[in-house]
């Protein structure tokens, strides 16, 4: 097995784009042999994941997204950091902004981990939660974070309104596909989109949409590679895992429809 160059950011980026199999592969089997090694591996993966979340959330926060300019720090926070920084309020706003911007990616990672490992258990009936965690941490830390960054860029940059509405309309169409399939009498706020492409998409918008497509494909491919390499599955089983993971948004939408029609 070749070494992955995860020691450097450039090396990781290179592997993520050019050698995704090296990127998601668990490098050493000995990491799973003893309890101490397992804990060490888990701690390493968690730190790696948090670092990636920070890399994702920090630029967004510094760009002013999720940065609430008028919030003041609570007394306990001001007391805790008052001796360290001159303006605890600014540090508080920065911290809240970072947490808000990290929340979506963290929730998405948890959802992917549950659906991915559930699919692995269902298809192959084997354990290996840490191997699933490894795969999901690398897949979401790189490709899903890139996907979220792209969507965030679409929603905040000027002149990309048509591209943004296209993404939103595609999501709405996905919801209505399930709603129509179930035959439920519900509708989304704003109703069904008249057309998916609402207006001319600028060249920059087209490029961002294409990059979102690439990031999505990489994300799915990395999960497939994780099933193949880390869990030792054949092509058909790994494809079944991928299909099961791809079905999780359908389950989410279906659950939302049932919740809004039966429970509410």
């Amino acid at each position, binding site marked *: *097995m*070749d*070494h992955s*160059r995860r020691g450097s950011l450039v090396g990781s980026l290179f592997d993520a*784009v*050019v*050698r995704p199999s090296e990127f998601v*592969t*668990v*490098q*050493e*089997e*000995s990491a*799973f042999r003893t309890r101490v090694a397992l804990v060490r591996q888990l701690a390493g993966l968690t730190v790696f994941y948090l670092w990636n979340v920070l890399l994702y959330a920090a630029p967004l926060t510094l760009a002013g997204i999720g940065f609430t300019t008028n919030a003041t720090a609570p007394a306990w926070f001001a007391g805790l950091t008052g001796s360290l920084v001159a303006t605890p309020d600014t540090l508080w706003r920065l911290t809240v902004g970072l947490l808000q911007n990290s929340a979506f990616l963290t929730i998405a990672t948890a959802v992917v981990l549950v659906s991915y490992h559930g699919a692995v258990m269902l298809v192959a009936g084997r354990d290996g939660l840490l191997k699933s965690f490894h795969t999901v941490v690398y897949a979401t830390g790189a490709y899903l974070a890139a996907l979220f960054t792209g969507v965030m860029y679409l929603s905040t940059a000027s002149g990309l309104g*048509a591209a943004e509405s*296209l993404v939103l309309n595609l999501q709405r169409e996905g919801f209505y596909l399930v709603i129509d399939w179930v035959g439920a009498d519900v509708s989304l706020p704003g109703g069904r989109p008249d057309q*998916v*492409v609402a207006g*001319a*998409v600028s*060249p920059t918008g*087209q*490029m961002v*949409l*294409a*990059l979102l*497509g*690439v990031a999505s*494909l990489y994300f799915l491919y990395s999960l497939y590679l994780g099933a193949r*390499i*880390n869990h*030792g599955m054949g092509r058909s089983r790994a494809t079944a895992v991928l299909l099961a993971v791809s079905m999780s948004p359908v389950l989410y939408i279906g659950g939302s429809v049932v919740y809004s029609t039966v429970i509410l």
Partner: protein
Amino acid sequence: MTTQVHHTNEETSDGTDSEASDEPDEPGEPTLARVHPSTKPVVLRFALYLVAGLAAIGVFFANPQLLGSRDLTNVGLLLVQILTAIALARQAVAFVVLRSTEYVVTPTAVTKRYELLGRSETRQVPFERVRSHELSQSRVEKALDHGTIMLNQGLGGLRLRNVREPFDVYDVIQRQARA
């Protein structure tokens, strides 16, 4: 479809650290086989991806309304262009890596060495830690009389890709693994 010759050696699996190590082979050891992997399959894949990518790009250019609107078709075209560029870049990197890779079989270990951007890497599996070995040939490899030899299938294994005359090399490895 792949052709496979597989062997599992449970006796040598002692449950300890059996993955490839990074240590170079012993100095002064005789070399039983020294192989440079073939780059032909990579060149073939490069050509295949290039042709397929250009064909897909041509289809998008010829049908501006392929995805329902000109804008969406442009997005599809950009997507195909990016994926083609990445696929070609991957094969180019694989070509460079394979060109500087060598597989060495000594009486005590199988070693794989390669250099990439001035950085050399070595992976080694000592025969005493080989618990399984396998020779497989994809359709392309079979047509070219190449093969892939895998030591210790799964995590921590060593994969020797695109080995020329693979049965000869595999024979040497089998003999040493049995010794």
